């Protein structure tokens, strides 16, 4: 590990020097047309870490590792009128072809009321993490397990007996099941932090309360552009700011999550509940979030005839600014699963995962930050039980 760490540090130092020199000519603020109606911004994030194609702790699908990723994104908001805004974000990962992450219209039907309607590929109404700007707002380098870690469930393939699912423990990067699609596809996370759902949403913002709700095609685990399941998902969040610096939120979502190709005995919904809190003061920010998700299965799994499985993700994170340029941060994260009875054993249906990540960052410029992190992962199952992953990152945005 140590030679790899030395190479990482050396590579990061070279990269920082080059970027710092090049950074003098880079834009600092969003680009805009003279009338201010069109505003364009971008973000480039380069994360360097060792390969992890055995444990797949940070994979977001079968190809992309969040701790070893180069991501470019461009956002644009065009406001042709005071009541209308068109927003989009396009992303490219590892220099692959761009894909649309967000594309929606935002309408304010009443000029003097803080009520907005969105339609298209819209921001999530559930939870707090997915709405944060990654480069500027993420305390560490990795993502919370509930928003990233691939469980062994799939929306297009399903187990027939409990042992089918228990055999896939710790193999969320490539699970396979007897029922449904036989293609090689990754499992789903509790909430996708990398794709947004498509539908309509509404939000009302008061002085201390914000309420948002959405009706979308996919689910939290499997956001979609086109609908492939038997119904819509409804999701919502209420956030309260009782005192300045403290935000407390509660979220809920329910929607059909299985692809139409799977024979479901009845309604097969993903139901999720979330709670989040953020408190900041002085040079501190502390956040915590909890996500519970329950997935109905297409057929009850013998021998116990289990009709659903569930998971609970929870984490706390903190960031402290030591100086105007230097900060330290950390996150403690756990993802647990409900127990499932197989033919010979009762176990959590997927292998529980714990993660601790510590990071330090340095602002080369206001919009150019270098981070270094060490992440320790431990999993109660799978062929690799634990892994320590160092990584460095440069994030630039304007």
């Amino acid at each position, binding site marked *: 590990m140590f030679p790899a760490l030395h190479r990482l540090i050396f590579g990061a130092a070279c990269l920082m020097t080059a970027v710092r020199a090049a950074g003098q000519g880079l834009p600092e603020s969003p680009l805009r047309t*003279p009338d*201010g109606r069109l505003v364009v911004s971008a973000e480039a994030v380069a994360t360097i870490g060792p390969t992890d194609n055995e444990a797949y702790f940070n994979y977001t699908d079968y190809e992309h590792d969040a701790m070893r990723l180069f991501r470019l994104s461009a956002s644009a908001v065009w406001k042709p009128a005071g009541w209308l805004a068109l927003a989009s974000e396009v992303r490219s990962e590892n220099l692959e072809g761009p894909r649309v992450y967000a594309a929606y219209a935002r309408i304010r039907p009443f000029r003097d009321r803080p009520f907005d309607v969105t339609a298209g590929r819209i921001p999530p109404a559930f939870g707090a993490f997915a709405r944060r700007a990654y480069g500027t707002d993420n305390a560490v380098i990795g993502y919370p397990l509930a928003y990233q870690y691939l469980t062994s469930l799939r929306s297009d393939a399903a187990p027939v007996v409990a042992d089918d699912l228990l055999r896939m423990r710790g193999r969320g990067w490539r699970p396979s099941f007897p029922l449904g699609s036989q293609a090689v596809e990754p499992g789903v996370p509790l909430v996708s932090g990398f794709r947004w759902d498509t539908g309509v949403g509404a*939000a009302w913002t008061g002085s201390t309360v914000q309420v948002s709700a959405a009706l979308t095609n996919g689910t939290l685990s499997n956001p979609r552009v086109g609908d492939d399941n038997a119904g819509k998902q409804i999701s919502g969040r209420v956030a309260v700011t009782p005192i300045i610096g403290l935000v407390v939120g509660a979220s809920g979502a329910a929607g059909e999550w299985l692809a139409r190709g799977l024979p479901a005995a009845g309604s097969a919904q993903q139901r999720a509940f979330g709670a989040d809190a953020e408190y900041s003061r002085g040079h501190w920010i502390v956040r915590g979030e909890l996500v519970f998700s329950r997935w109905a299965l297409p057929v009850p799994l013998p021998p116990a005839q289990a009709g659903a499985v569930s998971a609970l993700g929870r984490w706390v994170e903190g960031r402290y*600014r030591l100086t105007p340029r230097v900060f330290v941060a950390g996150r403690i994260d756990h993802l647990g699963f409900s127990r499932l009875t197989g033919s010979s054993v009762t176990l959590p249906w997927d292998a529980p995962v714990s993660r601790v990540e510590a990071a330090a960052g340095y602002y080369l410029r206001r919009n150019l930050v270098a981070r270094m992190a060490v992440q320790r992962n431990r999993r109660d199952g799978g062929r690799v039980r634990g892994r320590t992953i160092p990584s460095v990152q440069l994030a630039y945005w304007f």
Partner: protein
Amino acid sequence: MLRLSAITCFLALLALGVAAPRGAAPGAAAAAAPGAIRGRVTLPSGPATSVDRPNVADVTMGAGLPVDRRSVVYLDPAPRAAFDSRDEPVARMDQRNKTFVPHVLAIVAGSTVEFPNSDRTYHNVFSLSKTKSFDLGRYAVGRSKSVRFERPGIVRVFCDIHSHMSAFILVFAHRYFAVAGEDGRYRIDGIPPGSYTVMTWNESAPLDAQRVVIPEGGGEVELNVNLRKR
């Protein structure tokens, strides 16, 4: 978009007090009547609002905020007498309606600037400028924190929470400067006779330099400045 080029910063730093005075001869200032420079600064047309960085994850409609892009006019170099002052005044840069007020502040080195928060939300004032680097952390409405600026130079001030909030503090080694008014008018008084370069700084224009002579008998010299677009 509002960035200063390295050359402009270097020139500005020189002008803000690093250069030695070469206008009036030593002792001449005391005998001759002081003069004044006044005039008007005209800005190139451009956006008069600041914008948030587009956050597509925001579920609500944001709005552009007006920016008061005032210019600062100052002498380069300043008369030698200008460096005799030992005042350490206190200035104020408010955080109101998610903007810094004023957007441009000019002070003498040694001044303390207070940063009160007048909004019902957190702000986090900070600067990574070489002249003065600081981070006041997050503090709520009604509270104020202050920073002392010892060195001449340009300090860019930001809010860590609200990306569109920015301001400039120009720290001078002398007192021969003026912040232009809303209409662009300015006036610098009490200038000893001599030959000076009048510099005009604006965040959205290249630094402007013009020669001005204050006659031995004093009096007013009018100097209008048309800034070019950066």
